[in-house]
């Protein structure tokens, strides 16, 4: 893994992390009504993982698990309606009232989005691991 040994960059990433996580979570929840969604949220989380591992704050791993869990979640959401006799991918909407937040509406589409997020983060981790591994010897690049 290439690490950037700059204290400024490291401190900046440390400060930005909670904000980025908040943004990603917002995008994940906002997706149904506003711009955002599971894919965008996954990319934001992916950026967090990438920046933290480049500044040496995190050792990225587990892409295999993330992708597998994501695929399991989306297929589970897709096929579970069949258990109740509904059609494939029939999305359910749940509405409840919670303290502080007030009326909250969500549904199985949200769970589906979580699966998508997991896969996207997994892909980013795979990218980091694949490209960030030990560089090949320079001689192969003839210029």
């Amino acid at each position, binding site marked *: 893994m290439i690490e950037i040994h700059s204290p400024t960059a490291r401190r900046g990433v440390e400060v930005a992390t909670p904000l980025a996580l908040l943004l990603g979570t917002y995008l994940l929840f906002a997706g149904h009504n506003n711009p955002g969604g599971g894919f965008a949220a996954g990319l934001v989380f992916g950026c967090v993982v990438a920046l933290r591992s480049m500044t040496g704050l995190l050792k990225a791993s587990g892409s295999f698990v993330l992708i*597998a869990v994501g695929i399991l979640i989306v297929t589970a959401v897709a096929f579970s309606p069949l258990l109740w006799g509904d059609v494939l991918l029939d999305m359910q909407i749940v509405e409840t009232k919670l303290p502080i937040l007030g009326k909250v509406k969500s549904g199985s589409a949200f769970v589906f989005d979580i699966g998508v997020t997991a896969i996207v983060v997994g892909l980013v981790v795979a990218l980091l691991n694949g*490209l960030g591994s030990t560089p090949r010897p320079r001689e192969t690049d003839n210029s």
Partner: protein
Amino acid sequence: MILWIFALHGAAMVAAALLGRSSIRRGMAAAGVAPLVGAIWAISQLQGDNAPSTEEIVWVEQLELVLRFSTTPLALMMAALVSGIGVLVFVYGVGYFDDTAEGGARFSTTLLGFSASMLGLVLADSVWTLFIFWEFTSVTSFLLVGHKNTYPATQAAARRALMITGAGGLALLAGLLILADNVGSTSLSDLSPASGTRGTVAAVLIMVAAATKSAQFPFHVWLPGAMAAPTPVSAYLHSATMVKAGVFLVALAGPAFGDTVSWKVLGMAFGIASMMWGGFIALRHEDAKLILAWGTISQLGLIITVLSIGTGKAVFAGVSIILAHALFKAALFCVVGEIDVRTGTRNVSELGGLSRSMPIAFAVAVAASLSMAGAPPLLGFPAKEAAIEAVLGLEGLEQLIAGIGIFGGSVLTVAYTTRFLYLVFGPGPETTVAPVRWAMTIPSAILAMAGFAGYVFIGWVNDIVIPAATQVNPASDKYELIAWPGLKTAFVISMAIIAAGLALGWVIANRTQEAPDARGANVADRTLDNVLILADEVAGRVQHGSLPVYLVTMILTVTLAGTIFLGDLDTNGWVAWDSPFQAILSATIAIAAIGGVAVGSRLGAALTLGAVGVAMAGLFLTHGAPDLALTQLLVETIVVVGFVLGLGHLHRRFPPVEPTWRMIRLFVAIAGGLVVSGGLLAASARPVGQAPVEALQEGSVDPGGGNNVVNVILTDMRALDTLGEVVVLGAVTLGILALASTRSTASNR
């Protein structure tokens, strides 16, 4: 009941796999239970006038994807043969193998798997069912031929068998598809005469499929090689049952193609050529198994010929010979296997005098050979008489060709049989033999006795054969097998054939000669090798691994394909911009793109590409697509991270490019850009119908429950697409990760 019999075969396969682990003989014994029950069932069904019953498992009803089995008379006759000979072969196998033989679980399970597949093939009532079991028999045959999988010759033989019968399977699939489409039903009991060009094409395809499976000239080259298999396999698959699948197919498709000229001509050509060539080569071989294998090719040719002639009498004769041939040829193979095991050789020139040391085998061989030669009092006699009668019933050229073919083929059959018997059992230095193995002797004796019993109880055989033949051609019900016809023309011809054959066989047997080369098999192998070499070269040239060349090829293809849209370009209705921002952003994109081409450092190029992406996100925003813009921005960010990581592996600056190559790349890039832009303009100038915006918006709120149409489409309305994409993406990534990890471990070594 049929489905239960298949379930029993499955259970017996598990038992054979478990018991065969310790000893192949136990595995064979366990496996034999399933065909025993199958044989009892099939023979009980043959008694009395049972109407055909059908059993099915429906998978996709609309596509008629069903497993359907039916107990038609022909199917039951074949099922009785498959399971009946199956039992005997499994018992025979108990004697044939030593306890030390390896791969017992594999062998007994595969052989039983073949038995079940063959049973499914003959009982199938839907074209899909037929095709699936047809392929199962090819695959199990491949595994059984290649049982001794460490010998290169065995590997080549197994591969040859699979390639030829597999290619035939493809022809069968195509033929059945056309046929089913023509008739409008996938049921094999609904076949009606096929006509027209499509009928002809289907007839040719199905006949070719039958010829590959039944080892007809010139597709016969796999059968002699298949003799590399242990003898129980040769007796079962390559004489009595699997090679009968092609013949059975010709009978089964008779109602559809009986009147098609190409069917008849092709079938007779395959049949007569195989009959003559097979008999001719069988005269020259020294290996007893190869003599029988070439004899099988010849006999199958005879059956195909009479079935293709297609008259009531000919079909009747064909079905009768199927029955007779299965009995005598399996018996002969069993005898050869016994000789092989007890003397240690199958070479007829090394053998001799076995009539004294192996009297039972001698009796079996004589009885089976007489049946094959068509001599009384054995089942082969009335069957052969029926074939000659059928030829006598023809007219003109057809009679001449079929007559010469069958006469010549039959003389050769008698001749190679005589030579075989004379050399193995006749006078000469007696070969030393090991003690008798009853598990081998008894099944072969039963097979030979069955040929005799079939002659004595000819009425019972008639009860089986007549309905089976009538199923193929309704005109067959007028005929029956006759035990003793008296001095009729056919009888005289029959005796003339035997006399000529005896004389020829006698002459040949006393001459030493060289065994023929396996020329056809070599040609087949070389063809296959050359195809593989060619494929390797083509792949090596096309997949040379240069990323720029791949990219240029792809972009050039897209450019050429896209030029057809340029004709629809229409300058009317072009708007320069909706807002001035778009102009600014577009200019930014253009400048950044040009800069990306001009810049010499890799980091610079990455940054200009980033600028293009960000400006593109801005363009999306001005068009009112915030979701797209957001995604674009985020993807750009990730890509920048990727670049930073990737550039660490590369040199800072691009390598120099040869000027000509650079010009080509430049040209392709510019042409591609122009064509894509033009195509997009042309597409927007020609809207097809009304965009379903309103319907989507309404559907998004109810039942989708969200206001962001784009995301509701992704997660609800078209969630199936998302699911598919996500799963594919994930699977591909997991695959690449696995590949990448193997590469790094390989290079670390």
